[in-house]
């Protein structure tokens, strides 16, 4: 089953009842930007009939360049991705070509969930800005799996091949040092800007503290490599005993403190939403600055579920000023229309039935 849409305006409101497929449109756009779904890691799940394959074909203009991105998932599970009829051999080379920011109701998990959610947040952003970062991060994750498998093997065979462990450590350190250095250089300014936006949005004098939290920081090392070497040396026997790698950039986190207390423990619903919007707004601005053009903004159900109209309007306002395209879903046509008129943007409303 195919559906065609044409989006002629800067702001596209998509309305319709729950379950009609509003979010699917946003996810289809996200898919063309990231070669994967925003909501699931399993491609087969987003097909109209699960596991029956799909095709997403999108035409747009980026920086005055015509771009036709096509994603195909075959019934066999094979994935093909092409831009202007050029088939990618590596999907990752597409990341960053079509920058995007999504705000979805479940995103507060960034604040309330485990550290992997926050690593995903910073990685999604930095990968769009720095291609080497993405490559080194992917390499790091692959080598980490090899290292953990090796540690398991040592325990099973009762023989520790220190020469091989040393080689794999060196490979892990080479990839990890790049990621560590970039996070160290990039995150302070990024976090500071989130903080600034948070203060604006919440309109209060709350003491919000955001910091990059990494096990590599405890060493006053001359270089990132040294920090890694020391961390691995320190964890050596523990790694062997537990058969996994206890320290590294895969343990990094972002700490949120409100008045000196963990944010997720004491923040209200409203404060959480404010922080989420501050994060997304910062991502939007940074992508715009690094790329030199505005990313696409996808707002899923922000009026209903997030119930923070002021913030949504603020975000909308920023995007309209930056000339970016915005897609926004809502169950109520009247409410959506009122908001869009209020912002005074060039908009259209698509009603799904």
């Amino acid at each position, binding site marked *: 089953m195919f559906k065609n849409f044409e989006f002629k305006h800067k702001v596209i409101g998509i309305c319709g009842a729950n379950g009609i497929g509003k979010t699917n449109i946003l996810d289809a756009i996200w898919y063309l930007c990231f070669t994967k779904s925003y909501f699931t890691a399993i491609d087969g799940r987003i097909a109209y009939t699960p596991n029956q394959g799909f095709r997403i074909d999108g035409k747009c203009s980026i920086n005055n360049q015509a771009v036709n991105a096509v994603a195909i998932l075959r019934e066999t599970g094979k994935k093909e991705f092409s831009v202007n009829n050029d088939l990618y051999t590596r999907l990752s080379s597409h990341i960053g070509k079509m920058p995007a920011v999504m705000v979805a109701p479940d995103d507060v998990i960034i604040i309330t969930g485990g550290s992997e959610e926050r690593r995903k947040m910073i990685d999604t952003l930095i990968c769009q800005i720095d291609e080497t970062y993405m*490559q080194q991060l992917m*390499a790091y994750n692959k080598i980490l799996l090899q290292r953990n498998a090796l540690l398991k*093997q040592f325990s099973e065979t009762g023989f520790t*091949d220190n020469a*091989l462990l040393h*080689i794999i450590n*060196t490979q892990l350190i080479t990839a990890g040092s790049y990621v560590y250095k970039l996070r160290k250089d990039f995150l302070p300014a990024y976090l500071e800007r989130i903080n600034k936006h948070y203060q604006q949005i919440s309109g209060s004098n709350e003491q919000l503290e955001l910091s990059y939290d990494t096990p590599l920081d405890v060493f006053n090392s001359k270089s990132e490599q040294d920090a890694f070497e020391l961390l691995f040396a320190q964890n050596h026997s523990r790694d062997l005993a537990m058969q996994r790698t206890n320290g590294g950039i895969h343990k990094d986190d972002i700490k949120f403190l409100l008045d000196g207390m963990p944010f997720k423990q004491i923040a209200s619903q409203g404060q959480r939403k404010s922080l989420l919007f501050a994060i997304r707004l910062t991502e939007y601005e940074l992508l715009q600055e690094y790329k030199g053009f505005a990313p696409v903004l996808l707002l899923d159900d922000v009026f209903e579920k997030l119930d923070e109209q002021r913030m949504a309007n603020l975000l909308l306002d920023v995007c309209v000023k930056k000339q970016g395209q915005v897609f926004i879903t809502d169950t109520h046509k009247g409410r959506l229309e009122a908001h869009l008129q209020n912002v005074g943007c060039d908009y259209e409303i698509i009603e799904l039935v």
Partner: protein
Amino acid sequence: MNYSSTLLENAVNELAKLPGIGRKTALRLALHLLKEKKEAVHLFSNTIAEMREQIQFCSVCNNVSDTQVCNICASSVRKKSIVCVVENIRDVMAIEATQQFSGLFHVLGGLISPLDGVGPDQLFIESLVERVKTGTIEELIFALNPNIQGDTTLFYIQKKIESFPVKITSLARGISFGGELEYADEFTLAKSIQNRISIERQKNNY
């Protein structure tokens, strides 16, 4: 599927074990063999059985061979001072197809990958170290896939032979091998053999 003959069913089962062969294709192949003359099918199955039974792996380089030492290692015109280290036999064939390489080979039989349960002991690394120890080799060219396992294997061997005066080079990385050496086109492969780089200058590059 219902077979009226268990003999046919057995044949289909065996054929379906081959890589890339599904049950449908296996049935088609089996039915094709049934239409052939008995002698032709005999020849077919004997050829396969003989290959498996009689093939040898070269005692020097681990390449497939009909004799104890393969014809590349036995050749008097090839340079014995340059050895190209590859993952598998298909890589030997790909490099031979370029006709740009006149040295010898060493087939590792795989790459180090703990995730796949492959350690240095399962590969022909020790025999390579032994070859280096004899002192006849001046240069080792590593023609391994430019991926993590390829690098692990390269660095591991490099460490093992660091005390011997052997020059270590690698096919230029960064150029697209399409992931697998065997799929690289001959021109690209030939060029990267000529433009091989010294390993000291090489950095991790994925």
